């Protein structure tokens, strides 16, 4: 019973982290029709932001606060210099953002070296769940992820910015014809997606080894989550993250991480075959 509970908490932790990364992907894809291959590197930069602040003698908490701001600024520069030229050009956007991802990764290697780095968890200790100990920091990660997801929902469903973004996602020309500055909206949305990934990378850094390839480990399941859940809306990313993360964790616990990868990819292919628009996407008639 306890093992199941601990497994459930670990799975939830993984699912919520994937959901944070997937939300950023969905937001950018929904508005700009850009598949952002550099999204994993924004996640990576968030983790390295914490490493840098920590190395300079600052606290983890300062790094956590600075990460979304710093990565958001990187996103702003990337959007202005590269991404805005490939909006709604599907293949071009994949190539351009892939190039961007390589450039960021190599810049990280040049700056920090190819090896991995460690960040000590800022909160020590654990809580007793039934008779097992569970690290408090892992519960903190879940709380932060839920907070960020909640904030994203509030931003897109309850604010003026969100209303404009949803209108532009539905019909870009019509939104412009009603006076909405879609260029500014693109820029802000891309920056928010990058900041969200940066925050996810920063918050998870203390429980992972931070290295230049860590972004890919979250980008791939996040992409699968978006495809499985449906690329058109926020809830699709959450459902997809639950399906992909849950399957991955359960299979890895029962068999092995290698079998888990095979099962997850096979399941994703089957779901996409049966529901081309994702589980929450439009149905074929």
């Amino acid at each position: 019973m306890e093992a199941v509970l601990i497994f459930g908490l670990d799975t939830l932790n993984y699912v919520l982290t994937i959901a944070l990364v997937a939300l950023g992907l969905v937001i950018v894809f929904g508005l700009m029709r850009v598949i952002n291959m550099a999204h994993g590197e924004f996640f990576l930069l968030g983790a390295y932001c914490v490493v840098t602040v920590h190395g300079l003698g600052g606290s983890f908490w300062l790094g956590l606060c600075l990460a979304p701001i710093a990565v958001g600024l990187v996103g702003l520069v990337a959007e202005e210099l590269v991404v805005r030229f490939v909006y709604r050009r599907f293949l071009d956007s994949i190539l351009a953002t892939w190039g961007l991802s390589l450039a960021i990764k190599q810049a990280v290697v040049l700056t920090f070296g190819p090896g991995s780095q460690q960040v000590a968890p800022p909160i020590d200790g654990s809580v007793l769940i039934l008779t097992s100990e569970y690290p408090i920091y892992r519960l903190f990660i879940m709380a932060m992820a839920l907070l960020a997801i909640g904030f994203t929902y509030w931003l897109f469903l309850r604010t003026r910015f969100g209303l404009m973004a949803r209108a532009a996602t539905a019909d870009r020309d019509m939104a412009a014809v009603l006076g909405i500055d879609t260029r500014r909206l693109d820029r802000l949305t891309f920056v928010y997606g990058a900041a969200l990934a940066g925050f996810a990378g920063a918050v998870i850094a203390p429980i992972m080894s931070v290295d230049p390839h860590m972004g890919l480990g979250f980008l791939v399941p996040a992409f699968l989550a978006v495809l499985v859940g449906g690329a058109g809306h926020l809830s699709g990313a959450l459902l997809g993250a639950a399906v992909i993360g849950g399957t991955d964790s359960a299979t890895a616990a029962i068999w092995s991480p290698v079998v888990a990868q095979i099962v997850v990819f096979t399941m994703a292919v089957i779901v996409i075959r049966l529901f081309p628009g994702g589980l929450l996407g439009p149905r074929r008639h």
Partner: protein
Amino acid sequence: MLDVTGLVAGYGGGRVLDGLDLRLPGDARIYGLLGRNGMGKSTLLKTVMGLVPIAEGSIRLDGEELRGLGPTQIARRRVGFVPQGRRLFGALTVEENIRVGGLCRQGDGPAFEDLAERFPVLRERRRTPAGLLSGGEQQQVALARALAGAPRLLLLDELSEGIQPSLVSELARYLVEMADRDGLHIFLVEQNVQLVRRVADRCGVLEKGRIVAEYDREGLRAAGNLERHLAL
């Protein structure tokens, strides 16, 4: 109000509008533009809105050149547009559609409740996704969404398309009321001759990208067979 001079515009280098001249005078509250399919009516409205680039010529709104401006900038000069097919945001509720229409309003404009007085469907279907409404209901929401931006010029593309004939007289009433009550100018592109006859102060006929005939109010009433302009 609106002066179009020597306008050439089209898609991929083609000339859908070929040297079009048109003047919407300030005293004509409603201008009707008739023409068969493919003559360039919708292209003209999209060009005025900045959705199709101008190759040659100019479009002036109250003396200000619109050439080179994008749709956002033109909309912020208080030009409203209801395109063919209405293009409501289907997943957004009726209320959200109206709110989007008023988000970038320059100056004062009607509140949701004011619009709901005139278009009852707004109140009745307030929380319904706009994509689930009937054609007639969508027409009202599209008009209300455009009015929420408090336009001084409203461009309407085939507003009567897809709604039952019995609702056309109601539509005519809305248009005249909008022009009188809101003090705005309406540029109405139509294939429904009866609707244009009923509401327009001035009417032009578009053929092959040019205006080939124009009628003032009296001429419009007196003209016997306007339908010939729409015959194939």
